[in-house]
């Protein structure tokens, strides 16, 4: 309980969130389908109910420059996540940060998943902010330079044994409140539905459907495990990107590398994301 309070205090002093939804190198390599198929601590960004499925402590770090070279700026994104299994579920922590010149976005998540046998329920508490630094010199009239919000995510996951299948559902940004700057509009609700299944022993399929603000997206990912699960080849597609990735498992560590091509905007060319995971 003391640990939980400590975590809440730490997290509540952070600031966070953002619409960018590619949090994990592993998930991106699978078409960003993470609602049911992502079995590591990065799942907190997609569906907190998965936290109850994780039997070990996981740690994950991802880094990318998703838009490559930008003339007048440099945008980089990193996120960190970790989880701790509990008696009937699991606790998770997530942190996401976008850094650019004079501007940053931070999102922190505290998640908890509870295991009702084959049915997991999960919830995230999120606190986020946008920061504009040195802004008052540009706009003397506007002196507020932080946008804060608090929000919740909700998710569940159904684990089926025969066939071995997981069905996940999550709602992002429930009951969000927002203040700062001059805009009071709430954050957009986002609905995710995912299903994943082992097609073969070495092949795993995940499919996600996403809806937010009149915008439908999907994610389809195929994962191939070879060389006694040491190497994973991943292929994914969604409405925006085609991706491919490789994951290398070395003892307790995994290195993910994903490259993707932007379907909608060829101007963005290829981009890549790298991740390091650990499992104890």
């Amino acid at each position, binding site marked *: 309980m003391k640990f939980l309070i400590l975590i809440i205090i730490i997290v509540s002093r952070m600031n966070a969130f953002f619409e960018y939804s590619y949090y994990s190198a592993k998930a991106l390599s699978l078409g960003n389908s993470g609602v049911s198929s992502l079995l590591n601590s990065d799942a907190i960004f997609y569906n907190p109910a998965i936290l109850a499925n994780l039997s070990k402590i996981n740690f994950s770090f991802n880094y990318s420059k*998703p*838009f490559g070279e*930008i003339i007048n700026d440099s945008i980089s994104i990193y996120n960190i996540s970790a989880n701790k299994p509990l008696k009937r579920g699991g606790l998770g922590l997530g942190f996401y940060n*976008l850094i650019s010149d004079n501007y940053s976005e931070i999102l922190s998540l505290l998640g908890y998943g509870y295991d009702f046998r084959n049915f997991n329920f999960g919830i995230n508490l999120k606190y986020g902010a946008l920061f504009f630094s040195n802004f008052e010199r540009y*706009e*003397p009239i506007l002196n507020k330079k932080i946008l804060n919000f608090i929000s919740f995510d909700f998710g569940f996951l159904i684990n089926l044994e025969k066939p071995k299948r997981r069905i996940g559902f999550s709602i992002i940004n429930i009951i969000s409140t927002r203040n700062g700057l001059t805009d009071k509009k709430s954050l957009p609700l986002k609905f995710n539905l995912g299903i994943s299944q082992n097609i073969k022993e070495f092949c795993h399929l995940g499919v996600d459907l996403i809806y937010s603000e009149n915008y439908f997206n999907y994610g389809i990912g195929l994962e191939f495990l070879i060389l006694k699960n040491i190497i994973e080849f991943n292929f994914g597609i969604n409405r925006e*990107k085609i991706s491919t990735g490789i994951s290398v498992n070395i003892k307790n560590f995994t290195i993910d590398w994903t490259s993707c091509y932007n379907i909608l*905007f060829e101007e963005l060319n290829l981009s890549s994301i790298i991740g390091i995971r650990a499992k104890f």
Partner: protein
Amino acid sequence: MKTKFFIILFLILYFNSTIKGLLLIDNFNDGDLTTFQNKGISAYSGGSANASVSPDSQNSYGNYGFALKFTYTNSSTPSDWAGISIPLDNSISYTNFHYLSFFIKGNLDAVGDSIYAGIYDGQNRFVNISEYLPYGITTNYQKVVIPLDGLSSNLKAIQSINIVAEGKFHPGSGIIYIDNITFGTNFPGKFIIDRFSDNIKDNTTYGDSSIGAWGGSWITNYYENQYLKLPFIIQSGGGAYYSTKFGPVQPLNFSKYHKLNFKAKEESNQGDLNTIRIEINDGSTKGTNISSIDKNWQNYSFNLLGLGINTASLNSLQFVLYDWFGSTNGNLYIDEVYFVSSNYSPDTNSPIKPYNIKFGTNGLTNYSIITNGVKFSANCSSLSNDISIESVRFEYSLLNSDKWVFISEDFSVSNSFYQSSLFFPPFNQIFLVRVSAIDIYGNISYSDTYYCLSASLFSLSKTITNYLGGWLRNYDFSYINIPAYSLYFNSFSFKISQNYNGKSLKDFALSTISDIKFIGNGIFLEPENIVFKNDITIQLPIPNLPFGVKTNDLIIYFRDNSNWVSLPTEIFTDEFNNKVLKTYFSKSGIFIIGTKKNIAGENINYTDEIQQLYISEKFLTPNNDGYNDNVIIAFDTKLKENEKVYFKVINLSGKLIKEEEKNPLNNRVIFIWDGKDKNNELVEPDIYLILIKTRNRIEKVAVKVIK
């Protein structure tokens, strides 16, 4: 040989005698009551009237600087009058001038009052302004042109310009605003005696009118509906007259005019007037008869010289009604009585719209990039035979603003080439430039409007090593709301250091300095290149700096001919707690704050498809406050004009926000994003990417939106 000499002498004398020119008495833009001739303007009044005069920044003509505000109160006492006197420098000869003009408007209380304007040459010589304006004085500015020929024959003795509100006919109170008082050498060609638009018996020369009858006849006069109505009963052998005197003091010299024009109609109840005699008194009475007057308005014109009238000495004009054959009664109507010259051809056309507009030596086109300190120029001319353009005005406006900001006005009489003063554009913005030509009658022609881009760092980088003032914030070019400033003249122990409150800066300057102006982020000690005995100290307050510019990056530059010279600059905090830059220099001229190097802009060389890519800001705050409401992306290109350049705005989630296609124009491509999506709604605060795609190149620009 002698013949040639006399021809040359004649030509010299001729051209000297026909020199055209304007004399601007004051446009009041320095905000004080001292004219450009260094004479103080004052208010005066008679009877129980009250008058006051002051500079007014809210009602200036063209919304720049100040106007002269004249406030008066006349009681119902007929002898009440309130006025302002604008003394003139009597060391100047005014004999070459043929008109006095100014812009005038009044508040609603003043619109119906009798406002006279004129000169004092030992006598008050007035015209009723309402008679010289088509609709009288209104609440909008109009230009009044008062002919001096006929008003005074003694311009050598002119002492002042006077403007008077008289309570004789319209007691009341009001406020009159006056701007741009000018004498001009063009001859207007027309002198209005009475248009009756003021519905008073005095004519426009301030002369009284009277009626009389004999032989049992009767006449009376009504001034209503803006014409003269003369109900009459004329008995056989009798007659009646309406007489109006020229001026309060006779005679007046109308030798520049050759015709008397008026319009009239008759409305008879019984019989017809068979004779109306037009008589003019030049010491003796001379005239001519009109055998009958039409039932409808008709114009009549008489050649004064043909009647043997000495036009240099006129006392009065009379309309005399006779009926030789029986009695008659009815109404005679008269209107629009005026003298004109024989070649009078009013310039009813607006001037040719200004063209060939340049900044420096470059032709102005849409999206010209304007750098620090340029002078605009334009060609324009009048359509009339006279050189009748009185001024050419240069203005700019910020994008999406309906306010035109005054740059300067050229009053030189060239009928061809006009030039603005040095212009420092607002920093990093799209702005519009236009030029307007105004003739002596107030007709205005506007040039085409040009979109321009201010990007001082961008273009100056081509010519100088050190970048100059990347952030030329505009202080509205007004003498108000200027931050604290300091000028120290060491050799005279002279010091100014205060917030400026609308006083004329020139009052504080050394005698060798004619004026001190604030320009962009600096000052202009006029005239340039006066060498002081000892260095003067220049102190310039540091305004808000754009992102990326630090106080230590700043330096004061001096404009030495076309080169900008950096001066050793110190930074300190003055007694008002302002951060101030300080330098010493021995010459007058332009001093502005700049940056030591390029740190405030993007200036990147690429291949021929995208050259000199320019990005105005990283931040976009679309709140219509004039700051960062648009992001401007501009680049030079060698792409052909029919080749497309694509701009796409996306958010980081990959959602398309807006897209536009542009074609290069004059080897330049400009894209402006106002923070709105394709549905014309403002986007959420966020970071956005603008993708630029040309034939072979793709570039990405990041923009942060804050609302």
